[in-house]
């Protein structure tokens, strides 16, 4: 079984809001020292793939990431937990793509890989949280899509059995291949730690980089699907404390009522 896992490298999601810095001009996060990590649900997707390969007693996992060169680190981490191979999709034409454009690039890469029986993505990226690429990728590949899966097993007749989270339980689906599933977190799919031997081997494995040209994509056509960020800021929450005074409780109450009316709160 050929499994493709799509991973996005994002800025460490554990950075506290007060430490988060933004470049208002470039409308981008400005944190050169921040750690870069794999999106949390993408990690779950990778773990689901690893467990499926174990249960199936074999199979091939390819990790794919679209992003800047730094994203190779995310792919190395996937190799370290024993993904079989990894491909980086990197091209200036890929920057700021909307979910349609992203799905197009990922779809082209999967086709170039010779297709896949199962494509796993996180249910959403972990930074922009759009939550659309998985479904759009299914459209791109002409495959059905299962959302919020948390576990996958080999099904009968070459199908894939997917466990899907529902309120208060799980729905079990079997799908023919190819199929796309977006993965959500569960107790069973936290990404495992890498064994040190695999970690060291992962650093030596070649990771090819494919550009738009390699994928046969026209940069001009992709440019149409570029997102323009109009503004980006860290929301601020302001709290002020005001004391309402008065001689007697009655005075205080009426002063409070007046103030609330002034503030147009009542």
């Amino acid at each position, binding site marked *: 079984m050929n499994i493709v896992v799509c991973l996005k490298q994002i800025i*460490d999601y*554990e*950075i*506290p809001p*007060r*430490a988060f810095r933004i470049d208002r001009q470039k409308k981008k996060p400005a944190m050169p*020292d921040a*750690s870069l*990590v794999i999106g949390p649900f993408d990690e779950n997707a990778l773990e689901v793939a690893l467990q499926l390969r174990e249960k199936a007693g074999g199979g091939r996992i390819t990790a794919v990431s679209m992003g800047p060169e730094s994203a190779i680190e995310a792919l190395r981490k996937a190799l370290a937990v024993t993904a079989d191979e990894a491909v980086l999709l990197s091209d200036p034409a890929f920057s700021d793509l909307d979910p349609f454009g992203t799905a197009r690039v990922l779809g082209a890469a999967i086709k170039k890989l010779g297709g896949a029986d199962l494509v796993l993505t996180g249910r959403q990226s972990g930074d922009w949280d759009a939550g659309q690429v998985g479904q759009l990728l299914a459209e791109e590949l002409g495959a059905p899509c299962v959302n919020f899966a948390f576990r996958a097993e080999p099904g009968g007749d070459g199908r894939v059995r997917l466990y899907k989270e529902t309120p208060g339980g799980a729905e079990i689906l079997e799908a023919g291949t190819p199929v796309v599933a977006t993965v959500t977190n569960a107790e069973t799919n936290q990404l*495992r*730690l*890498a*064994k*040190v*031997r695999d*970690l*060291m081997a992962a650093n030596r494995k070649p990771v090819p980089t494919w550009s738009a040209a390699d994928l046969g994509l026209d940069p001009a056509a992709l440019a149409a699907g570029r997102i323009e960020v109009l503004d980006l800021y860290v929301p601020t929450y302001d709290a002020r404390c005001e004391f309402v005074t008065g001689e007697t409780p009655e005075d205080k109450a009426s002063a409070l009522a007046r103030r609330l009316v002034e503030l147009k709160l009542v």
Partner: protein
Amino acid sequence: MDLSNPMREVYWNITGKNLMYVLLVPVLVAFFRGFYSKYRLWKIGRPTRRRDNWRRRLAGFFRGAVVQEKNFRDRYSGWMHFFIWGGMLVLFIGTANVALDEYLGVPTMEGLFYLYFQSLVLDVFGLLAIVGLAMALYRRYVVRPPRLHRTPQDAVFLGLLLLVLVTGFVIEGLRIAVTEDPWAAWSPVGWAFAAAFRATGMAAETMVGLHRFSWWFHLALAFAWIACVPYTKLTHLVTSPANIYMRSLGPKGRLEPINLETAEFLGASNLRHFTWKQLFDLDACTECGRCQDACPAHATLKPLNPKAVVLDLRDYMHEYGPLYLRRAQDDPWAAPAETPDGRPVPVMVGAVIAEDALWSCTTCRACMEACPVEIEHVPAIMDMRRFLAMDQASMPEGMADAIRSLETRGHPFRGTGGARTDWLQGLDVPVLDLSAGGGTRGAAGGAGADGAGPDADFDVLWWVGCAMAFDERNQKVARSLARVLHRAGVRFAILGNREKCTGDAARRIGHEYLFQTLAGENVATLNQALGNGRPRRIVTACPHCYNTLKHEYPDFGGHYDVVHHTEFIRELVDSGRLKLDGEVRETITFHDPCYLGRYNDVYDAPRKTLKDLSGAEVREIERARESSFCCGGGGALVFVEERIGTRINQTRARQAAETGARTVCTACPFCMTMLADGLKTTSGDEVQALDLAELVDRATAPAGPAAVGAGTGASPGDGSR
């Protein structure tokens, strides 16, 4: 008989004594064969150097094997053991003297030497040996302390030895009774036995016959006992002194690094992965159980018992070690899979030693400190943890989270939602700027005191440590220490975001790879920060950072002058730069952090400072200094939820509270976390945990209204978080 020359007839009444030497042959064969087969098992281990520096080794040998200092920490067993081994040694020398007299003509059996040594001293030591044996039997079978277990072996060889000694006196008594030895009084015990025999009215011929029988019986017993040595725990007669001689001379806190580029295996999962010394350790064990008594994990019902670790590995080595001697064809580092009769060989890590046992070790070193024969439990446990952590990627969940966080964020606190410099808000703490240009800059949001200049003007680099920087309670300690350093006029700087975890947490989990990654980054940073200009010191308030910076970074190219804040504060007080004028009306007890005390022998500096606090009354916990009881946080266990047994931190909190002190002073952020929690859950708000820096902060605060609230260490004007 010449009455002016005291003597006795050697081999009186014994004919055919040369038969003795015939009997000795199989005894010696058994003895040396036994040790040879053990030697072959030890050689399964990897090489390591343990014979260098003989002067230091000999000095340690004298203290450990001759004076037996550690044995005397328990007075009863100290004397008991001294009587037995001293007695046996003196009697052995006495016997050897007989041979000298008989075969080499050295006159040991006549004159004053005969009277004083061969008669009196031997008698007295023989009696002491009997007393020692009686003490041993009484303790093992009547008192029955939990640290001693009882095997048939123990009974047999204690009984055998007692019989050897008693028959020795029987022989002497019979000889005196029959020969009417004029110097009998010089052998008081033999003389008493003789008197007893005479009192029975036994005929002389009977006594002569009985003497002859006893002589051979005594000899047979002694020979049997000698033959037993390599096959029972009597092995320790040879291996324990040797083990003391070959003990580790390196810094106590340094773990042996692994060369990850060339390593053919990671950690220890079978006997081949241990060093020969680690295997030798197993045969040096006397089964005394002091390690078991010292172990905080064992005391709180965890599945770890250091004595059991040693004995289980020893039994595994004795049973399956011979199979290792046939070298495997394919993988020279693999363990044998099955016995010749097809039984599977149990897995060393997992079956022989349970994983839970390994993960229960706080690496507190109490076992090693207690061990009278210098067995190195912690490095062996660490080697097996290394196997689990690196080869199997298997570890408790809390540790896995710490590893994940260390990998991506350089600190082990997952989900803290904090930043490394949060704690210094509002304080004037210069952060070293290591980007081109250098210098220091004021803390973000701080007073903006630029210590600028390309060659930043600081004398001391303060290594803050992750726990101090991220943990809310310990941030208060950091703030106290910052104030104290300012008051003493210390010119210091910190590394801010350039500081990463020293890697102690990763290393003690067993993840040497991650440790070495972090060590490499930190050494590069530190060498840059401390590289040029005058020599500078590193001060840190975390004993774990302290130990790693001081003892483990030299292996990775980092050689620094490191002081712990308790030592540094002591220096500042001694040199008059810090005046402890303020009153600290507290009853205080000091909890020794393992990595400060046992690992680095810093016991007195914090105590002296506490005694200097005016108004303070210092009390000692029963388990203090070398025998301090771990808080439960060492070995990265501070990150793990304690699910088995009772809680170590509560046990320690109770021990501390029993002193009646209202303040438990410590000097380690992990101890702080564990004790604060332990005290809260066992004594509510009655007893508080404070760091030494916080008490010194109070004692040095400018006069005025009480600057410090109980347990907060925060002075007015501090932005509270």
